[in-house]
């Protein structure tokens, strides 16, 4: 654990902040730790976490993806059309369909980024506009409400008692976290993702297949975008083509807040979860304390700004720490 915290300073910091915050909220409002509040906190943020772990993989590999929320919208819409055409379908078909479509969209990004060596932010901004424009044009902005029942029915998975039930999206979130953790921590491919984000030239020289690595990163992001999109329908019970726009930046902020580094090589699944949760808990806490919902964003923005500044106070102490280590090293 000590080792983990040492190599994951971002996660350690946010864990402390989150724990303190929850403690304060727990004391200030008894309903904070109630089963129903915890359940709704998780149910409402499951999709963000699914997207966050997808984005995490791209950030680890040194890229960025602005287009995933639009990608998720496209997947939602196409999946809905496929399912309607099939006359209903079921969860398995839905998952496969959303996953495959998501991976396809991710692969388009990867092909452009790796194939033409264009910086990822440009490509994903371009695909954001292209996909969003095409989606809105093709659908004329019409929502789909007539969806199969299995898709929109609330499915309780675990009951926390007292009216709090964790729903299917939370289970899928847990599975996505586990799968992503397994990919990035337990497979050689995952370690190559870190290496490529950390030092692309070094990775290339060591024999890492860099094009393949980028397809895996953006493909995984696409997969998570698709699955997240599928789950979002379960929560919202409708497919609205422009409903997810703007979520990409919120998720990005949460992932970076959770210790992932813009520029690659650093980040963890736990950090993503904590990053999303921190924003959610701040919002939840303000809600419980009866603060006007209109003030939420302001406080969240201020929290992130404070966190950024705090990060760099840390940096100062790390710099002095390094000098210490260096002289220590020489004394040995």
């Amino acid at each position, binding site marked *: 654990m000590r080792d983990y915290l040492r190599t994951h300073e971002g996660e350690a910091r946010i864990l402390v902040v989150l724990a303190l915050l929850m403690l304060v909220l727990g004391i200030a409002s008894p309903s904070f730790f109630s089963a129903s509040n915890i359940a709704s906190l998780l149910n409402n943020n499951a999709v963000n976490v699914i997207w966050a772990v997808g984005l995490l993989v791209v950030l680890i590999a040194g890229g960025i993806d602005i287009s995933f929320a639009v990608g998720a919208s496209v997947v939602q819409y196409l999946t809905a059309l496929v399912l309607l055409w099939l006359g209903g379908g079921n969860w398995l078909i839905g998952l496969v369909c959303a996953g495959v479509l998501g991976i396809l969209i991710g692969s388009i990004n990867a092909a452009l980024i790796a194939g033409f060596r264009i910086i990822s932010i440009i490509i994903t901004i371009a695909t954001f506009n292209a996909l969003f424009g095409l989606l809105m044009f093709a659908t004329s902005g019409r929502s789909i409400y007539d969806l199969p029942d299995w898709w929109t029915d609330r499915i309780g998975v675990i009951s926390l008692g007292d009216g709090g039930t964790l729903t299917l999206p939370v289970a899928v979130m847990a599975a996505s976290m586990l799968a992503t953790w397994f990919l990035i921590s337990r497979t050689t491919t995952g*370690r190559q993702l870190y290496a490529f984000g950390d*030092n692309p030239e070094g990775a290339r020289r060591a024999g890492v297949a860099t094009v393949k690595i980028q397809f895996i990163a953006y493909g995984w992001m696409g997969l998570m975008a698709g699955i997240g999109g599928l789950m979002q329908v379960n929560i919202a019970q409708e497919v609205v083509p422009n409903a997810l726009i703007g979520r990409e930046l919120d998720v990005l902020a949460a992932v970076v807040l959770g210790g992932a580094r813009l520029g690659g090589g650093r980040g963890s699944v736990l950090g993503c979860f904590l990053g999303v949760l921190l924003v959610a808990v701040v919002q939840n806490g303000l809600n419980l304390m009866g603060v006007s919902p209109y003030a939420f964003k302001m406080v969240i923005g201020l929290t992130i700004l404070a966190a950024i500044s705090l990060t760099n106070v840390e940096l100062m102490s790390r710099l002095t720490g390094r000098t210490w*280590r260096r002289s220590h090293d020489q004394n040995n």
Partner: protein
Amino acid sequence: MMTAPSTQTAPDGPEAIRFEHISIRFGGLQALDDVSFSVGRGEVHCLAGENGSGKSTLIKAIAGVYQPAPGARMSYFGETIPASSPPLARKKGVAVIWQDLALFPEMTVAENIAFDSLVGKPRLVNYGTIRETARTALGKLGVELDLAAPLRSLPISGRQIVAIARALASDARLIFMDEPTASLTQAETDHLLAVVRVLSKSGVAVVFVSHRLAEVLDISSRVTVLRDGKLVGVFDAAGMTQSRLGELMTGRQLNQAVSARDPGNAPVVLQTAGLTRAGEYEGVNLAIRAGEIVGLIGLIGAGRSELAHTLFGMTRPRAGEIRLAGKPVRFANNRQAIGAGVAYVSEDRLSLGLVQQQSIADNTVITTLRAISGAGGLISARRKSAAVTRGVTEFSTKIGSPDDAVSTLSGGNQQRIVLAKWLAISPKLLILDCPTVGVDVGARDGIYRIVRALADRGIAILMISDEVPEVYFNCDRILHMAAGRIVGEFDPRRTPIAELERTVYA
């Protein structure tokens, strides 16, 4: 055609590598011309040559990156092979530690060492095996490192150890080290040399690739010298000196006349008293007169550049005083130092000396933006182009168009641009930190002539270097710095160069 006066054969047994008649051509450039190179098992060997002499090309040929022209004969550990490739070379036990180390700062020490086991067919990671691999490799070196620490927490020397361990982890029996001491302190270099001795004893051959070999000469057995893509010869390391090596690498006697002069009673421009910054330098007293060139010789890590940074206002001394033209100064930042007439030519021209991507013109005027501004504070195109022309012609710098990126220039011409940008502020004190690093040998005399000409205009010059001949032939007075202190003062007109070399490289 020079013949190779090799006097000592390689140690007994099949050699680690034998590459013969290696020729490599890139377009119009003959990078290597019929070069032969061999290293014995467990031998410590030096491969010396100036920038552009073909050292890197030769390493890349041995590592399988480049294919030599037909007619070459190559063998690894007694086994002749028709053609090499990076995986084959690696399999045969050849490893190259590039100057940038090619490590992964965010990953742990263990993963960095065992990284080669993470490449290849996708499979599960076994962290136990990784730690074991890392521990074994470090054990061979007799070094203990915290395996779970992220690499970024290690000093450069520690990272170098990790890079060596990584080579050993993939069973390397011949390790090339590209400029290994370039960024190490003295203590770190000593540590590295101790590690190399251990390697050599266990039968692993090590080749140092460098143009600065003073530090590694005494643990090496032979030196191979390249110049202009051709083999100059293979020499015994015993009895080799840095200046002899310099002659071999350059193919001519270095500017052999001592140019030292007496500054006479010229006013003192820079004076420091008891200047101290803990861990960097201590009790530094020095004085430089107008028109005087003072050499500051010392190995890397002696505190030379750190002292220069303080004089240039980038760091603050903890104790002591700096006087500029008689007045005490305390710089809060380097802008104040520049305003007071202090200029600093960094040894790191690529990332600190020039903004490489930007144009020659912009790099020339960057220090004098106010002077080239005209009406309304706008930069005047006319004044700018006049300033650029002045800067470029001043030192007869060879450029294409002033709008070309400065990175398109050769090292010598880049350094002329750096000097021109500092001359533009009419400096009182010019600090040169290893002014000929990365400058071709032929172009070095030109730089030295410019430096002397600047001194003749009354500029006080502090020339930092780790090459004795550089300060010996170009300075009026030489200060020797070691472990943060100035430990000796020499007059090139009275001290023989050999004595100075003995003192500095001892």
